[in-house]
C-alpha cells in the first residue's frame, strides 16, 4: 500500500522535474504530456487508496525519513492516508490531471510551455505534501510550497507588470498569514511536545483553554491567508493575472481550500474551542456575502469567478466553524469540481475572445461555443445550488447546519448570499453566451476550444452533476474520522419549506439575472449610466476601497517608512553617530594642533603652564590635607 502512497505523492514531482529538464529548451509537447500522464498515475493511486480506505476503513501511515531532530524536537517526513487526506488527494489529483491535459491545449502557443508544466506539477506535489503530511511541519512545507508555486504561476507571464505585482502580493499576503501559522505550530510544539497530529491532538484536551484558544486563532490566521479570508482576501482577485488553468487548479479547486483543510484536520482542536469556531463561522458567512457582493458588479469574467470562489470558501468556513467538518469537506470537494469547470470554461472563452475578459464585450457566444456554453451553464447551475446538481447537496447542507445550530443570522446571510450567487453566476452566463453578438464590434472571431480540452473537462462536468449523489457513501466514510453529526431539520414541514423556499429564491435570482442581461440593448458600460454613478456600485466596483486602502495606507506607508529608515535613520542617525564619533576625534585634533605652533616661546610657556597647574593642584591638595578637619566641619555646616 505504501507503494501507492509514494506513487501518488511523488509522481507529480517526477513530472515536474521532467518538465524542468526542458525548462531552457524550446516548447515541446512531451513536457506537457509526461507530467499529465504521471498525474494520471497519481490520480489512479489516490483512487486505489480511496477505495481501500472506504472499503477497509484502515488508514495508512508511513515515515519516510527524519527531517529535523534536535533537542526534544522530532519531525519526520511522515505521511498519512486517512479519510480526510484521501478526499483531498482525490480532489487534487483529479482536478490537476484535468487541468494538465487541458493546459496542453490552452498553453499551446505559449513560449513558457515547458516551464509551465514544471511549475504546475510542482504545485501538485506541494499540495500532496500538504494534505498527506502526518504532522504540522510537513503541512507547513506543503503550505509554503504551494505558496511558492502560486507565486511562480501567478507571475508566469512575468513580463507583465501586473502579473508580477499580483504574484508578489499573493506571496506576501500569504506570508503574513503563515506567520500566524508558524506561531500556532510553535505553540503546539511547546505545549504538547510534538508536532505529529495524532499525538498532539491526544494531548490537547488536557491543556488550558486559553492556550488552546490562541492555538486555534493562530492556526486559523494561517488558514485565512491561504483561503483568502477577509482581510487578506485581495490577493485572490489579483491572482487572476495567472494563466486560466492556474486559476482553475490553484485559485479555485485546491490551494485556496487548504485553509479549510487545515481547520478540518485540526478539528480535535477546534472542537475544544467552540468560541473560535463561531468566530470562524461568522467570518465565513461575512466573507461569503462580502465576496458575493463584489462579484455582482465586476466586469472581469475571471474576477467574478474568483469572488465566487471566495464566497464559497466563506461557506466552507461557516460549516467548519460550526463543527460540521464533513460538510465543509464535502462542499470543498463539490466546489472544486464545478468551480474548476467554470474556470476552464472561462479559459475557453478567453481564448476565443483573444484574452478579452469583459463579459459586456462578448454576448451570444453560445452559437459558436456550444460545448463550453453547456459546461459553464451546468457549472453555474451547480454553483447556484439547483437540484440535483452538486451544489444543491453541499450548499444546502451548510444552510441546514446553520439553521439547526440555531445561528439564524449566519443562516440568513448565507441564504441571501445563495441568491446573490445565483444572480452573479447567471449574469455572467447571460452576458457571455446570450444576447447580441457584441464581440463583433471589436472585430473578434471566436472559435471553440480543441476537442480534447473539452473531453478533458468532461470528468468535471460529470462530477459537477453527480457529486451530490455520493453524499451518503461519502458521509459513511468520512465520519469514521470526523465527528458524526447529522444535520437534519427534524420537522419535515420546516425542512421542505426551507428546501423549496431556497430553490425558489435561487431560481428567481437566476431568472432576474437572465431578464436583466439578455436584453438586446445592453451596451458596454461607459461610466455614464445612473447605476454606475450610484454610491453602492462605486463601492462594490472598487472592492469596498480595500485595495485602495492597502495601497495608500500600508504599502505606500511601508515604502515611505523604509525610505525614512534608510536615509533618515540608518544614514543620518546610526551611521552618522559612528562617523561623528570618529570625527570628534579628528576635529579635536585639527582644533588643538595649533597648540603645537612650532614657536619655542609657546612651547616653553606650555611647560611652565603645566607646572603651574600641577603646582596649584598640589597646593590645594596640600592645604586640604593639612586642614582636612576644618574642611570637613565646613562641609558639614553646608549640609553636604
Amino acid at each position: 500500500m505504501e507503494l501507492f502512497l509514494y506513487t501518488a505523492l511523488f509522481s507529480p514531482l517526477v513530472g515536474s522535474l521532467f518538465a524542468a529538464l526542458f525548462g531552457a529548451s524550446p516548447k515541446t509537447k512531451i513536457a506537457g504530456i509526461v507530467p499529465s500522464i504521471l498525474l494520471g498515475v497519481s490520480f489512479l493511486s489516490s483512487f486505489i487508496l480511496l477505495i481501500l480506505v472506504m472499503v477497509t476503513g484502515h488508514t495508512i501511515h508511513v515515515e519516510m525519513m527524519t527531517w529535523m531532530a534536535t533537542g526534544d524536537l522530532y519531525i519526520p517526513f511522515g505521511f498519512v492516508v486517512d479519510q480526510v487526506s484521501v478526499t483531498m488527494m482525490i480532489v487534487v489529483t483529479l482536478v490537476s490531471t484535468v487541468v494538465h491535459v487541458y493546459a496542453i491545449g490552452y498553453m499551446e502557443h505559449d513560449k513558457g510551455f515547458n516551464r509551465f508544466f514544471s511549475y504546475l506539477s510542482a504545485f501538485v506535489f506541494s499540495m500532496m505534501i500538504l494534505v498527506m503530511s502526518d504532522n504540522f511541519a510537513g503541512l507547513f512545507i506543503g503550505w509554503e510550497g504551494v505558496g511558492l508555486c502560486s507565486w511562480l504561476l501567478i507571475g508566469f507571464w512575468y513580463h507583465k507588470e501586473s502579473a508580477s505585482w499580483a504574484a508578489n502580493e499573493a506571496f506576501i499576503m500569504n506570508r503574513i498569514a503563515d506567520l500566524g501559522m508558524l506561531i500556532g505550530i510553535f505553540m503546539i510544539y511547546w505545549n504538547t511536545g510534538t508536532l505529529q497530529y495524532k499525538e498532539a491532538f491526544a494531548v490537547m484536551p488536557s491543556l488550558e483553554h486559553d492556550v488552546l484558544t490562541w492555538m486555534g486563532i493562530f492556526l486559523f490566521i494561517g488558514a485565512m491567508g491561504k483561503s483568502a479570508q477577509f482581510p487578506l482576501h485581495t490577493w485572490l482577485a489579483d491572482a487572476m493575472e495567472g494563466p486560466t488553468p492556474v486559476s482553475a487548479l490553484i485559485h479555485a479547486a485546491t490551494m485556496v481550500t487548504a485553509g479549510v483543510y487545515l481547520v478540518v484536520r485540526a478539528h480535535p482542536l477546534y472542537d475544544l474551542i467552540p468560541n473560535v469556531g463561531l468566530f470562524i463561522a461568522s467570518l465565513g458567512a461575512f466573507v461569503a456575502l462580502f465576496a458575493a457582493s463584489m462579484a455582482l458588479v465586476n466586469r472581469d469574467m475571471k474576477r467574478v469567478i474568483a469572488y465566487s470562489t471566495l464566497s464559497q470558501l466563506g461557506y466552507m468556513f461557516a460549516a467548519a466553524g460550526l463543527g460540521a467538518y464533513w460538510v465543509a469537506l464535502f462542499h470543498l470537494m463539490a466546489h472544486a469540481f464545478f468551480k474548476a469547470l467554470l474556470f476552464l470554461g472561462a479559459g475557453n472563452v478567453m481564448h476565443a475572445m483573444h484574452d478579452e475578459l469583459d463579459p459586456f464585450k462578448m454576448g451570444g457566444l453560445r452559437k459558436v461555443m456550444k460545448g463550453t456554453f453547456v459546461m459553464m451553464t451546468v457549472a453555474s447551475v451547480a454553483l447556484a445550488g439547483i437540484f440535483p446538481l452538486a451544489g444543491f447537496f453541499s450548499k444546502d447542507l451548510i444552510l441546514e447546519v446553520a439553521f439547526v445550530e440555531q445561528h439564524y443570522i449566519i443562516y440568513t446571510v448565507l441564504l441571501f448570499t445563495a441568491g446573490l450567487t445565483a444572480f452573479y453566476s447567471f449574469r455572467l452566463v447571460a452576458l457571455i453566451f446570450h444576447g447580441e453578438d457584441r464581440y463583433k464590434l471589436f472585430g473578434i472571431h471566436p472559435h471553440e476550444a480543441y476537442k480534447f480540452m473539452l473531453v478533458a473537462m468532461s470528468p468535471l462536468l460529470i462530477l459537477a452533476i453527480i457529486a451530490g449523489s455520493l453524499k451518503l457513501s461519502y458521509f459513511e466514510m468520512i465520519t469514521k474520522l470526523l465527528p458524526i453529526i447529522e444535520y437534519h431539520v427534524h420537522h419535515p414541514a420546516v425542512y421542505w419549506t426551507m428546501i423549496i423556499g431556497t430553490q425558489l429564491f435561487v431560481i428567481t435570482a437566476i431568472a432576474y439575472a437572465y431578464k436583466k442581461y439578455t436584453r438586446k440593448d445592453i451596451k458596454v458600460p461607459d461610466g455614464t449610466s445612473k447605476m454606475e454613478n450610484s454610491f453602492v456600485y462605486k463601492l462594490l466596483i472598487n472592492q469596498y476601497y480595500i485595495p485602495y486602502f492597502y495601497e495608500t495606507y500600508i504599502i505606500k506607508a511601508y515604502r515611505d517608512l523604509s525610505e525614512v529608515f534608510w536615509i533618515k535613520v540608518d544614514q543620518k542617525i546610526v551611521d552618522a553617530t559612528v562617523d561623528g564619533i570618529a570625527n570628534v576625534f579628528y576635529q579635536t585634533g585639527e582644533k588643538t594642533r595649533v597648540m603645537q605652533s612650532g614657536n619655542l616661546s609657546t612651547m616653553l610657556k606650555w611647560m611652565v603652564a603645566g607646572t603651574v597647574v600641577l603646582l596649584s593642584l598640589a597646593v590645594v591638595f596640600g592645604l586640604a590635607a593639612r586642614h582636612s578637619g576644618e574642611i570637613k566641619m565646613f562641609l558639614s555646616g553646608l549640609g553636604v
Partner: protein
Amino acid sequence: MEIGLNHYLVLSTILFAIGLVGVMRRKNLLMLFFATEILLNSVNISFAAISHYYGDLTGQMFAFFVIAIAASEVAVGLGLLIVWHKKHNNIDLDSMSTMRG
C-alpha cells in the same frame, strides 16, 4: 634681623620665578639662556643654604654638579646659537617655527 634658612629659600624661589618668567618672555635666544642660568643658580643658593643647615656636604656637592652642568650647557647652547646665527643672521625665537602642527 637674623637671616635664616627660610630667607635663602625665599630668595631662591624668587630667583627661580624670575628665571621662569625670563624663560617665558624672552624672545632672544641668548637672553633665554641667561634665564635658564638664573634658574639653575637659584637652586644652587638653596642647596648651599640647606647644606649648611643640615651640616652635610651633599647639597654643596649637588650645587657643584649643577654649576658644572650649567657650564657645559652654556657650551653646547652657545655652539648651537652661533651656528644658528651664522645661518640666519638672527637669534630670534620667532624665526624658529618651520616645524609645527
